């Protein structure tokens, strides 16, 4: 029971991270396709106000896994050592270049570093996710794999898919938060990214069958849930494509791509979760075998679990503080009034 509840918490962290830092990393990737320095700057600034909070979900994801499933933490990370290290390198460069570029503009080189690091981080994350399909070697609680043992062409496919999906999310967010030419180009490119991500995802779903961790759809319940979730994903992706194509300025046109892609992303991860449960790493590292003791589970469910609503509230506060269309330059951000969420939210 406690194990199931904590698994759900870890899953929430994963989904929050993928969606939030997904758009954030995707905007970084988008700067690489952007020639206009003003637009690149705009993209970077729209990340500056939120990246810290978004990335904190990655830390919570890691630590939630560590606290609740310590053996998984101590095994998956060495298993995916090199891609994780590349991801950490990239996240360092990214975090620092965002602040450098926004505290002391214009900083074209920092902006470029930001874009390259975002691309590398996205790919490394997808690659690391891909290693979850390779068999792990454990002796007792000690990982004994080799440096490249977890790598396969599937990891590359997974890396490309995640990068495309993040990029699509980034463009959806940009369409939501910008106006004028930038909005139009984000819509165009976002549609392409969404289509690419969709095609790659189909390839992933086909290819995963030939890895060490094929999808387990043995029971009718799993098969139905999997199919329904994939339908949701397809629906979300389709909605996003329609939303991207919708050129007229309206609230719906700006919200549909982001909404559709979030639904699609969440559905895909849930579907893969359904088809894998309860395996963490093939062949036999499962949620049950990796779980921590009861005394720990109770502590984290109470201590960390009860804090989750508060954590979500901080996230909402941080995002609403800078709600509305994002502008750089003389007009500043949409200024929150004293009656706005900012003023209210600062008095918890």
């Amino acid at each position: 029971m406690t194990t199931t509840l904590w698994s759900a918490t870890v899953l929430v962290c994963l989904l929050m991270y993928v969606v939030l830092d997904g758009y954030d990393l995707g905007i970084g990737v988008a700067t690489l396709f952007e020639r206009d320095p003003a637009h690149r700057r705009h993209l970077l600034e729209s990340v500056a106000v939120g990246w810290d909070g978004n990335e904190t979900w990655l830390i919570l994801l890691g630590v939630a896994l560590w606290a609740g499933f310590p053996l998984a933490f101590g095994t998956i990370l060495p298993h995916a050592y090199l891609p994780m290290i590349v991801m950490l390198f990239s996240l360092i460069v990214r975090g620092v270049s965002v602040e450098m570029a926004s505290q002391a503009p214009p900083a074209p080189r920092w902006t470029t570093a930001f874009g390259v690091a975002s691309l590398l981080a996205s790919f490394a994350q997808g690659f690391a996710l891909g290693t979850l399909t390779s068999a792990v070697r454990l002796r007792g609680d000690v990982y004994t794999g080799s440096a490249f043992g977890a790598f396969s062409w599937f990891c590359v496919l997974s890396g490309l898919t995640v990068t495309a999906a993040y990029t699509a999310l980034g463009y959806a967010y940009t369409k939501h938060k910008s106006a004028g030419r930038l909005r139009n180009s984000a819509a165009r490119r976002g549609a392409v990214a969404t289509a690419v991500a969709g095609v790659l995802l189909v390839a992933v779903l086909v290819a995963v069958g030939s890895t060490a961790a094929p999808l387990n759809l043995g029971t009718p319940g799993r098969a139905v849930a999997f199919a329904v979730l994939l339908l949701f994903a397809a629906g979300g992706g389709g909605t996003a494509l329609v939303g991207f194509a919708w050129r007229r300025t309206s609230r719906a046109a700006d919200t549909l791509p982001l909404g559709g892609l979030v639904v699609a992303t969440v559905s895909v991860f849930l579907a893969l979760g359904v088809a894998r449960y309860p395996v963490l790493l093939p062949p036999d590292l499962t949620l049950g075998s990796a779980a921590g003791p009861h005394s720990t589970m109770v502590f984290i469910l109470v201590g960390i679990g009860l804090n989750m609503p508060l954590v979500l509230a901080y996230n909402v506060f941080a995002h609403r503080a800078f709600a509305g269309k994002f502008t750089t330059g003389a007009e500043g951000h949409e200024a929150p009034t004293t009656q706005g969420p900012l003023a209210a939210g600062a008095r918890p």
Partner: protein
Amino acid sequence: MSLLDLSRWQFAITVLFHMTFPAITVGLSIFLSVVYGLYWRTGRAVYLQMFRFWRRVFAVGFAIGVVAGAVITFEMGLNWGVYGARTGPIIGPIIGMEVVTAFFVEAGFIGVLLYGDGRVRKGTMFMSTVMVSVGTVLSSTWIIAANSWMQTPAGFKVVHGRFEPTDWMRVIFNPSFVWRWPHMLAAVLISASFFVAGISAWYLVKGRAKGFARRSMSIALGIAALLMPVQLYLGDNVAGHELPYQLSKLEAIEGNWNNGDTGFVLFSIPDQQAARNIAELDIPCLGSYIAKDLTCKTAMPGLKLTPAADRPDMAATFWGFRIMFLAAVLMFGTTFAATVLRLRNRLWTARRFHRFVLWTTPVGILAILGGWVTAEAGRQPWIVFGQLRTSDAVSRLAPGEVLFSVVGFSALYLIMLVAYVAYIVRTMRIGPERDDPGQEPPPEDLPDTGLAEEGVPLEPVPPEPVPLVPVPLGSREVAAR
């Protein structure tokens, strides 16, 4: 170099690099709260100017601290996977509490602290600044709880090699936590004070922005003067309360191999293999005096009391402690001199003292790094003292993998450090004048409004060397005015 050595070097490099930034930003966030609070109460422009200037120093340091901190968390599984798997039930939840009670609080309010100036009410601004400092303090609290448990583990049982909590109160309020926590908190406040005082002293030396510099230095040295005596007392108690559990650390700190020395070893080159000091400078009787025995009879225990397999590296432990100790003596002397000058109304005319304070800018940070080297190196060869050896806790990776990451982190961190120092120097050169709300921004500080308008052709931005470019304000900030 073995896999274990590589992973230990990586941890040492990444953790010391990381710690440099909290040593600046935790105290600085509290300083920002104080300064903004003063502005809110008094409405005096100089406090807003101070807030804006010191926030620039804070912002980039905070970002580096965040990303470098994430590295540490993941290293617990990447490089220390066995440690991660075995101590996860105890350390994982503590760090988890840090994430939800501190990181998310910081992340939630940092946006307003950095970009909300002029757009939100002063009360909201103040509240957000206070929340960020609350987050940084809570963060230090949980981290010290986790590390202290590794120093003096309590409230657990070992089941099949795994540490499982039996009493969370004893886990968190373990014997060394109670003293190490206030010690660390005072340390980060003092290190930030010296950082602020040193930079302010530069303006006094240059005769620039005097109102700003005097007020900043006055607050910083005032806080340091209040805290230094407290810190010496706390530090003494850390030693007194932790070392009975870790005699090997005490022995290595003292720098003796054999028993019987009542002096204080000031300088030494220890030879770990031969268990002797190659060279040594000893102040007679001082060791006994420090142990509160003025009769010169209390001798310091030697490291040979600890079996060879359980001995920490004396050089690292000894010198880590000496750096902290000597830095503390220097800082105590500085704050003492500052207080005397202040009482004699000469603090603002003592030019040589200003020059001296400028040189003490990094001393507090060095003291903290030295202290951490003492704490961590002195705990060896244990990762959880007396329970789990560091050599058993390391991930069995290919040495080449770890070599790759050690080289990568070293190179990356060197670049980041250079970039941060260059950024600070540039921020100092541009100076707090641009942050004075009473003055119009000089022409080159005008916002680049073209960024906001779609379709307006922009002047091409010339490529510039990174990062020594004198450039105006962040456009967001200008927009805030």
